[in-house]
């Protein structure tokens, strides 16, 4: 498993408790469309990602992230910055 695969697996595990629709998770799964999350779920989920990786994802950055793959990329980048 590469570092990125590991990050993907951790992010997928964090999505699970919020995945009420049982949507299939892959790189292209979108938060608003496929998972049907509203802004409140997004906030709780983002907080759990931030805590897991000890990073900060600003609302400006969140606005650019639409699917799981983009989130995994952002997490990887933020971890390397820190």
């Amino acid at each position, binding site marked *: 498993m590469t570092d990125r695969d590991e990050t993907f697996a951790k992010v997928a595990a964090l999505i699970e408790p919020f995945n009420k629709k049982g949507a299939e998770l892959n790189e292209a799964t979108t938060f608003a469309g496929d998972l049907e999350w509203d802004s409140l779920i997004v*906030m709780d989920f983002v*907080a759990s990602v931030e805590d897991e990786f*000890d990073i900060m994802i*600003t609302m400006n950055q969140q606005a650019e992230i639409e699917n799981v793959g983009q989130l995994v990329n952002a997490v990887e980048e933020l971890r390397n910055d820190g």
Partner: protein
Amino acid sequence: MTDLFSKFDPLIAERQALLDTGVRDPFAIVMEKVHSPTLATIQGRETILLGTYNYMGMTFDPDVIEAGKRALDEYGSGTTGSRVLNGTYQGHTECEEALKEFYGTKYAMVFSTGYQANLGLMSTIAGKEDYIVLDADSHASIYDGCALGNAQIVRFRHNDVEDLDKRLGRLPAEGGRLVVLEGVYSMLGDIAPLKEMVAVAKKHGAMIVVDEAHGMGFFGENGRGVFEEAGVEADIDFVVGTFSKSVGTVGGFIVSNHPKFEVLRLVCRPYVFTASLPPSVVATAATSIRKLMHAGDKRAHLWENSRRLHKGLRDLGFNIATREAESAIIAILLPDQNATVRMWQALIEQGVYVNMARPPATPAGMYLLRCSLCAEHTSEQVSQILDMFATAGRATGCID
């Protein structure tokens, strides 16, 4: 070609479905006559107002009305200009003097609305390299101000001191920091633990703004707001407020002791690129603010009304957002839109007007009936209100 309005189709359909059930539109109330801060005529019926944020009942104060009339006679109906061009009259500076005296600050700046005061401060004070850290339940004007500016935006969980601490701890060392708090959160009527939050913000070297829109007039010894009652005045960098609640007219303001504060008059776009308040409005605001400095009896009666309504509603079996009355807003939680609208309608038919609030204005998808009390509500009116809630609640099955 796509109709630009098609994005609103789901909302139009939801609204139509609701109105088709035969209920009145909670967002289309017209006040045909207004008799006092607590009474109006709505659809021909005399109605007790319990959802106007007119906390201190200043809208019909004889001195306030007189000041407005005099200003109309002496200065005309409007300024037709920006504060930085032809729109600053004697009345605007007098209003700022009244604010400085009320808050005990060196500087005060009056905006045309409270919304614009937040829009101006958030969008201007923090640049691209700076961070604004705000409570997730912040008012729309705070979010919109952030969207208008270029700062990096970080949210923390509502009123969660530990979460604020954690988020501030993750910020990079570079860049300025502004923590945005509100004294009273208007949806649920809960207050912020300002003493603890301000201590955390200071520990991390952040500047602090407190919005006291719903706290001005009746918190703290001088009625300055929740921050005064919490004893943290010396640590607050900016207080934002409005004239449209306790002051009883319209307008917004920022007060501060920062030595460079006045430069904001040149750089705040929502201050520069709009017309200033009419002379009558600033005259009524200044008079009202000066009277609010000595309104101890009214404050006491407002708190008595708030506590009594909270307890009365709780005893009737309603689910209220706060355990005790923390402010003059009492928010009743209802299970869904349908129950909320039916209850709202039953109340208006009984003769009491409250606010209905629904997502996205509310936190966590809540449906609320919000009551806001006035210092001019008589004890008898509070009894009448409770009777009407009992009848309406039983008729709609919201209580047993």
